[in-house]
């Protein structure tokens, strides 16, 4: 069987396809499922709303890149606690624009999942073989020193000075050149995003990939589902044209934690549990810029090369960070000449961030009457706010331990600049309000959570919907709560297990 990738210009009429399994979404979840099923000899159609990006399609201008690769042009925000959140709209989903961080979830987190959500086969030992399969396939390895660059290594030095654990981040890259451009797409083709890794492998194994194809509803077949239906959409404008239907024995939704519940809601498949779209969770993050006496040449280095898991059990993880200057400069204080002075510090700067588990802060995803974009209601719990404040403090400590001459915390009601750890102690005593922080949350979970009790979740441990036995979900919506670390690898491990289960049953 020979596979193919179909692009926008190839659609000139309405069409129907028939297959064993249709997978909706080509991000880390969907691409793994599509590949494993195709490799097992199943006839697979993988549907992706976004276009495939060739190397020359990446633009370095952060704003225009977001407008091209992200849903709602990169300007999606939550209501309640207002926080920007980005979801990609491209072949490869989030893996096209993410920093390639691959971390196994800690054993204590997975044990906690099993206990709280009545899961029996999701301990670290259960998932380790699936983690390993993904790591082998993508060549995941710790970031070598020669592409770290100063802004990553200074983090290591600061952690060492304080006795905090730190490690080079393991990433799904091959031949990284340390260009720090992961957010706008890897021009070096080093990042093994699913569009250039799992999708081509699925095609080689016979999968048909329909890009620029938006699934709008699931087709019912008695008490089961019979496939999906939707329309072709023009890249970047979203203008719809031809209609399509894909009939399948099995439907796998991997459209992402926000789009999958919308699809279920629009198809009237919310089931009796009332859980579809509920439990929305994020890893909100705070970032701090530190300025060093000497040049850090921040334009060089892996986008996120170093991390500390020292405080994971306390609810936050510390990482280094880089993004197009126009994107992170948004956080810098000042106006006019003062702002320019702050911007001129960037060549001597490093930016590090804390992402917090925030299991107490929950929300919900609802479909809008028109279109497929979600309404996101979410609130940061005051206790989780304290965790973020703690993360801010630890970053500050590490900056000064690494030799920073000052930090710019970018938090309202705190001094705009702090020149010593002593000066920074105000952070400890500060009574933070949610609105003081400029938060961002790109890790999203739990809107179709996995739960042993059919009344309390949407899918079981095999990703299968409790109420519809040929409908599966394989995106971060199934994570019952935060994985404590960056979610991609854990999702891929779960997707791997889900695919093996489907292949055995089909």
């Amino acid at each position: 069987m020979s596979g193919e990738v179909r692009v926008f210009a190839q659609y000139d009429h309405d069409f129907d396809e028939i297959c064993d399994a249709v997978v909706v979404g080509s991000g880390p979840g969907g691409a793994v499922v599509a590949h494993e099923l195709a490799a097992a000899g199943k006839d697979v159609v993988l549907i992706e709303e976004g276009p495939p990006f060739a190397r020359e399609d990446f633009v370095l201008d952060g704003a225009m890149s977001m407008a091209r690769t992200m849903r709602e042009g990169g300007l999606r925000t939550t209501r309640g606690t207002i926080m920007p959140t980005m979801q990609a709209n491209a072949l490869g989903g989030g893996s096209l624009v993410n920093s390639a961080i691959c971390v196994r979830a800690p054993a204590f987190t997975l044990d906690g999942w099993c206990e709280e959500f009545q899961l029996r086969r999701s301990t670290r030992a259960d998932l380790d073989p699936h983690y390993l399969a993904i790591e082998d396939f993508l060549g995941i390895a710790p970031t070598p020193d020669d592409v770290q660059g100063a802004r990553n290594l200074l983090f290591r030095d600061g952690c060492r000075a304080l006795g905090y654990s730190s490690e080079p981040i393991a990433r799904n890259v091959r031949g990284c050149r340390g260009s720090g451009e992961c957010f706008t797409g890897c021009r070096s083709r080093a990042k093994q995003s699913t569009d250039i890794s799992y999708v081509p492998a699925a095609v080689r194994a016979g999968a048909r990939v329909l890009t620029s194809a938006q699934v709008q509803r699931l087709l019912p077949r008695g008490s089961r589902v019979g496939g999906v239906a939707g329309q072709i959409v023009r890249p970047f404008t979203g203008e719809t044209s031809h209609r399509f239907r894909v009939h399948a024995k099995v439907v796998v939704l991997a459209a992402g934690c926000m789009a999958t519940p919308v699809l279920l809601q629009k198809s009237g498949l919310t089931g009796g549990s009332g859980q579809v779209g509920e439990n929305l969770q994020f890893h909100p993050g705070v970032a701090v810029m530190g300025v060093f006496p000497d040049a850090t040449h921040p334009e060089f280095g892996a986008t996120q090369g170093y991390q500390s898991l020292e405080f994971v059990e306390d609810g936050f993880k510390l990482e280094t960070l880089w993004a197009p200057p126009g994107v992170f400069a948004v956080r810098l204080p000042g106006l006019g000449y003062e702002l320019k002075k702050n911007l001129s510090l960037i060549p001597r700067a490093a930016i590090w961030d804390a992402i917090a588990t925030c299991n107490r802060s929950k929300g919900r995803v609802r479909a809008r009457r028109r279109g497929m974009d979600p309404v996101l209601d979410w609130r940061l719990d005051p206790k989780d706010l304290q965790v973020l404040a703690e993360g801010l403090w630890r970053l500050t400590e590490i900056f000064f331990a690494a030799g920073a001459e000052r930090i710019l915390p970018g938090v309202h009601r705190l001094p705009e600049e702090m020149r010593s750890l002593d000066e920074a102690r105000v952070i400890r005593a500060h009574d933070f309000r949610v609105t003081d922080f400029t938060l961002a949350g790109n890790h999203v979970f739990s809107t179709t959570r996995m739960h042993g009790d059919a009344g309390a979740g949407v899918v079981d441990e095999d990703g299968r919907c409790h109420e519809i036995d040929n409908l599966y979900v394989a995106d971060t919506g199934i994570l019952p709560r935060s994985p404590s670390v960056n979610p991609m690898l854990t999702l891929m491990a779960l997707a791997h297990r889900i695919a093996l289960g489907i292949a055995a049953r089909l």
Partner: protein
Amino acid sequence: MLAVLAWLAASGIAVLALVRVFSGHPPAPPGARTLTRRELETVRAAGLAIYPRGGAIEPSGEDAGVALHADRFVRAQAPQTQLLVRLLFFAIEHATLVFPAPGPRGRRRFSSLTAEQQIAYLDAWRTSASFARRLLFTSLRAILTMGYFADEKVLGALGLSAQTIEAPRIEADLLWPAIGTAATGTGALGSNSDGTAARS
């Protein structure tokens, strides 16, 4: 008599509002295709207030072409988002009625204020106790900052110009063409992915 007076007053206010919103703006810079000349003038003025010429980085917001960049950025958004961004520009331009700039005639629209007044007005938004006002300012500054850093002169001044990267050709390059360009080397899959005419 009262009714006539009320009618006259209402008409007067309406005329003043129309004059305030629609008249006296310079022509749009060449190349602008989405924003109106009023909106472009708001963005240009804000760009100059937030990024004046000189100082630690030489180019101003105007030199960096932030207004044209905002025009392109808005064009790339979905209609609903476009509307929100335009409402933001409108709010900044006309909120002087509610939050006047310091100094004489501080209730003029933002782009007609003096440079000092514009800076003071935006700084009041930036440091406001009201989260909503700060959020609007941050949104405006985000759009302008991304435009400012899209300019090579600015990146060059900070030594942040992008590396030249010669990427190897990979398997995926054989599976689909670049968006909006002629397909090369894509075999049976060769055609444009955005529906524009193929170049051969």
